[in-house]
């Protein structure tokens, strides 16, 4: 019990929330332009795989991340094509994309590395741990915040950037407009399709980073289906955060935190399945406080395409 709120808790929370945050931001930008992205999990998995595969061949973790981003973005373009141009039902497309990326990564794992289940090799370098100069020297805070993979910090930077983008930039207001009323945006000469594509591609980049954080940041390996459903939790973070970058940050933080806590609660005399439930239960409870409005429009769009 004494270990429940130890120093590593914040550290651990940051690590665990980073993939959720990045993918959640990807979901948020899509939702802001009226696209309901159920394929976050598949995009993440793709990013995780490409990161490791590229790392194994290039032996350069930065190049690996770049390749993961490029590959996942191409994959997300296919996703966008299905939804935006072929008008496929967004939820079906998303679920099918998830299935597709499980199939493709597993297939590639076999054909490229001739292994099954997991690929790792000791030579492979994962992402370094960054000690942030100033923060590091502050006594307590240094311990708490410093010493994370660059992608964790990037997640925080992306949150701020996206916040500024929507709050301050002209382009951000165009993105919002497309989500609020695509017909009106179109009637004002906005290229709605282009903006929706852009959002889906950006979500591809963010999910690639989320996946890379898993496969190169948290561990340095790839295992089949290693996202373990994190994409769906990211989707929950998107919705709970009402597609607002800060909201997504807070909700993925809440999830990372409760998950970190739930690990620590396992010492108690409660069946583990109940402590594992904690993040989900807390999230439901959190919804009593934060109620969602934004998602409804994206939802209605996806509902529309199903009828």
């Amino acid at each position, binding site marked *: 019990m004494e270990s429940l709120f130890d120093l590593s808790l914040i550290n651990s929370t940051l690590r665990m929330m980073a993939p959720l945050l990045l993918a959640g931001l990807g979901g948020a930008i899509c939702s802001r332009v009226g696209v309901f992205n159920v394929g976050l999990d598949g995009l993440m998995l793709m990013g995780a795989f490409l990161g490791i595969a590229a790392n194994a061949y290039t032996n350069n973790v930065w190049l690996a991340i770049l390749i993961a981003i490029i590959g996942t973005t191409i994959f997300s373009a296919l996703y966008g094509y*299905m939804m935006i141009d072929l*008008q496929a039902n967004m939820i*079906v497309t998303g679920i*099918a*994309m998830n*299935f597709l990326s499980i*199939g493709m990564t597993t297939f590639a794992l076999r054909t490229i590395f001739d292994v099954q289940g997991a690929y790792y090799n000791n030579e492979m370098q994962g992402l370094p741990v960054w000690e942030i100069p100033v923060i590091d020297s502050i006594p307590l805070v240094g311990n708490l915040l410093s010493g994370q993979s660059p992608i964790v910090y990037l997640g925080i930077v992306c949150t701020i950037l996206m916040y500024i983008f929507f709050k301050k930039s002209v382009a951000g207001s165009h993105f919002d407009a497309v989500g609020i009323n695509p017909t009106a945006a179109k009637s004002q000469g906005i290229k709605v399709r282009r903006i929706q594509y852009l959002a889906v591609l950006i979500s591809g980049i963010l999910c690639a980073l989320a996946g890379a954080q898993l496969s190169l940041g948290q561990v340095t390996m790839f295992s089949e289906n290693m996202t373990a459903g994190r994409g769906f939790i990211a989707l*929950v973070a998107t919705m709970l955060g009402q597609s607002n970058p800060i909201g997504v940050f807070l909700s993925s933080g809440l999830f990372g935190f409760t998950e970190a806590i739930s690990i620590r609660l396992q010492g108690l005399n409660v069946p583990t399945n109940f402590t*594992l439930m904690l993040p989900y239960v807390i*999230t439901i409870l959190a919804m009593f406080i934060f109620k969602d409005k934004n998602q409804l429009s994206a939802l209605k769009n996806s509902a529309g395409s199903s009828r």
Partner: protein
Amino acid sequence: MNKLKTNATLFIQPILAVIVGLLVGTIAIMLSGESVAVTYQEMWKGAFGNLYFLTNTLERAIPIILAGLGVAFAFRAGFFNLGAEGQLVMGAVTTAIITVSLPFQGLLNMIISIVAGMLIAGLYSFFAGWMEQRFQINLLISTLLLNYIAVLFAGYLVSEPFRDTSSAGGVPQTVMVDQASRLPKLITGMNLHYGFVIAIILAIVIAFIMKRTTFGYEVKMLGQNVFFAQYGGINRKKTMFISLLISGMLAGLAGSVEVLGMHYRFIEGALSNPQFAWTGLMAALLANSNPVGTTIVAIFLAALDTGSLGVERNTDVPNSISGIIQAVLILFISAKFSFEFLKQRKKEGK
């Protein structure tokens, strides 16, 4: 004349989708260096090759049909029930526990345990509806989260209080259902059981309810325009709750029937890992929530599953290839391919 035309386009799209899907599959198969013709032949055989495979495909379709019907029913009323998985698991575990706890066996046991499973599953989905109605909690998030909770809770039930301690393995599962309380097989020696009959009857019943009854009308109108429904005196709360209850009950029945007809016990993960609920959801969406359509699409999706087994058994094409073909097929079926679309593209291209 007009109707004929729309019917034609209705068929052309899935056919086009299947062609594209198979083409992509062909590329993948060629990549893995196998014979394309043999692979597809095995796929066909695995799904429909003989009576055994055919009935097996139909068996696999049972939970997909029922979960799909459940999802479709809620969609009709305008609610996205992403919680079919949790409801299915709750139904299954309840049925498995009740059937072995009852002091008597046979038909009555079967009925009681199935009804109990359906009720619990229905209440599970009702709960999400209640949270939305009472506290404006987004149904989409709550049903999604309730899935995880249901799976973990069921896992707890069968690893602790209701575990089959008689088996040496320590597998998290309940004890076997008594022979007399199992759903009988339709054909001896085959897996297909009476759950299929139940599923087909329910598909017809639901189609009838939706098309031909006043309640179905109310549900449909609620789904199309809440304000219009209210204006016409339809009780929104009541209709919503009943629809979600029915939706959950159908998903729960998917689990109950799978327990009593196929596994004869609840085994942790055995119903959530095969993604029955998600496949059912896709079936419902692909069929525009039409009950008969959902059934047909569910059988098709099940055939892709069982067909891929055939490929796995008889060729060196990895299992994941069939996953890829399956996903691509679904993707292209969901796309709004039509002549209209092709024409328009052509025009713009020129």
